[in-house]
């Protein structure tokens, strides 16, 4: 099977849709040879390698041979700098600018490793912007909340992450991806009614809503993440099943249905690193 990778894979609705389509086209493949042909691809947003990496990993676990060909020199350069290339071809090049946030796969029990990864890739790296200690703390805690959400709700085995720092725009994009139960599946089971992917994501982002059953409260993580990104003038994107949900730096929510379903959840956060807010919150 040959998959032609589209010309632009960006952090936009169409970019996520392309990723979902690649999952969809290959979902039944076992013991096959799958070629991802990049001949037309001129741009691939680095953080989305978390989702692409999850796809390749998933296909390999179904005993498929994966081949990547015709990589454009710029795309290849991105793949090499953040370590993704080493997963597929066995080589990593030096990132002279230090703007990449390494592609990494974690087991769900690897919380300590994940913490070290965040420290080394985001907070202690010389090339990363100097942010206030309050901002650093809030960023790390919110990323942990996403990691934990994936563990608690998706039942997945692995979590994939990758990111990029855009120094001119003063932005960091970081994606956290799982291939597990989708938000739509969980909300549908919990409410015991049919619900669209979009409405399920919207429901999950509202305070106190949680699909957790039992005696442990929940439903705060995504709400606090939204509050933080609103203050920070950052952006949140959630893609799960056939839902695309985005809250931009002006607090405007965009919700759209994708043609194909993503078999898990992608959470992408865009952090405004130029934010000078101290994040000293007063007690309620």
């Amino acid at each position: 099977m040959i998959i032609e990778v589209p010309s632009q894979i960006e952090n936009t609705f169409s970019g996520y849709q392309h990723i979902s389509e690649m999952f969809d086209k290959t979902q039944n493949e076992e013991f096959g040879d799958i070629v991802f042909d990049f001949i037309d691809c001129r741009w691939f947003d680095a953080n989305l390698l978390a989702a692409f990496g999850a796809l390749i990993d998933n296909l390999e676990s179904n005993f498929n041979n994966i081949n990547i060909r015709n990589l454009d020199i710029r795309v290849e350069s991105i793949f090499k700098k953040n370590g993704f290339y080493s997963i597929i071809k066995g080589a990593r090049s030096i990132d002279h600018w230090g703007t990449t946030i390494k592609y990494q796969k974690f087991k769900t029990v690897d919380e300590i490793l994940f913490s070290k990864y965040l420290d080394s890739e985001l907070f202690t790296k010389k090339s990363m912007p100097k942010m206030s200690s309050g901002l650093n703390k809030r960023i790390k805690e919110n990323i942990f909340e996403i990691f934990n959400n994936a563990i608690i709700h998706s039942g997945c085995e692995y979590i994939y992450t990758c990111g990029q720092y855009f120094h001119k725009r003063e932005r960091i994009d970081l994606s956290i991806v799982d291939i597990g139960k989708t938000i739509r599946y969980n909300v549908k089971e919990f409410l015991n009614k049919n619900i669209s992917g979009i409405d399920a994501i919207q429901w999950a982002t509202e305070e106190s809503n949680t699909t957790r059953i039992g005696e442990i409260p929940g439903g705060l993580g995504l709400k606090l993440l939204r509050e933080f990104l609103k203050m920070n003038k950052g952006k949140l994107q959630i893609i799960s099943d056939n839902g695309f949900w985005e809250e931009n730096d002006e607090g405007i929510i965009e919700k759209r249905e994708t043609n194909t379903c993503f078999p898990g959840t992608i959470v992408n956060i865009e952090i405004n690193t130029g934010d000078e807010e101290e994040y000293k919150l007063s007690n309620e």
Partner: protein
Amino acid sequence: MEKSIRINIYNITGQHDAINSDDGEKIYSKIKELIDKDYNVILDFSNITHLITAFLNIAYGQLFGQFDEKLIESRIAFENISDEDLYTVNRVRKNAIEFFLKKSQEQTKEK
């Protein structure tokens, strides 16, 4: 009995990040046992630099399903905790109270 027992969170997590669900569960069990035995509890957050709701929901939030809100507030004290982390604790407390209230209302309806 009014004796207070201190629980050092860092001694349980073994790291500066209070993020792990199992650690949260251990802390919950200790607090519950101490309250059951009529002790006051001091939760000491020395050396904890990151604290998340997923951890607090387990360690602290689920207590509101076991004990009365006023009893919890009179028995548990937080020490060496930053204002920002205390804000998170308060959000978890508020959320837990609403969660168990909603749950008991639903159970009443079912009856």
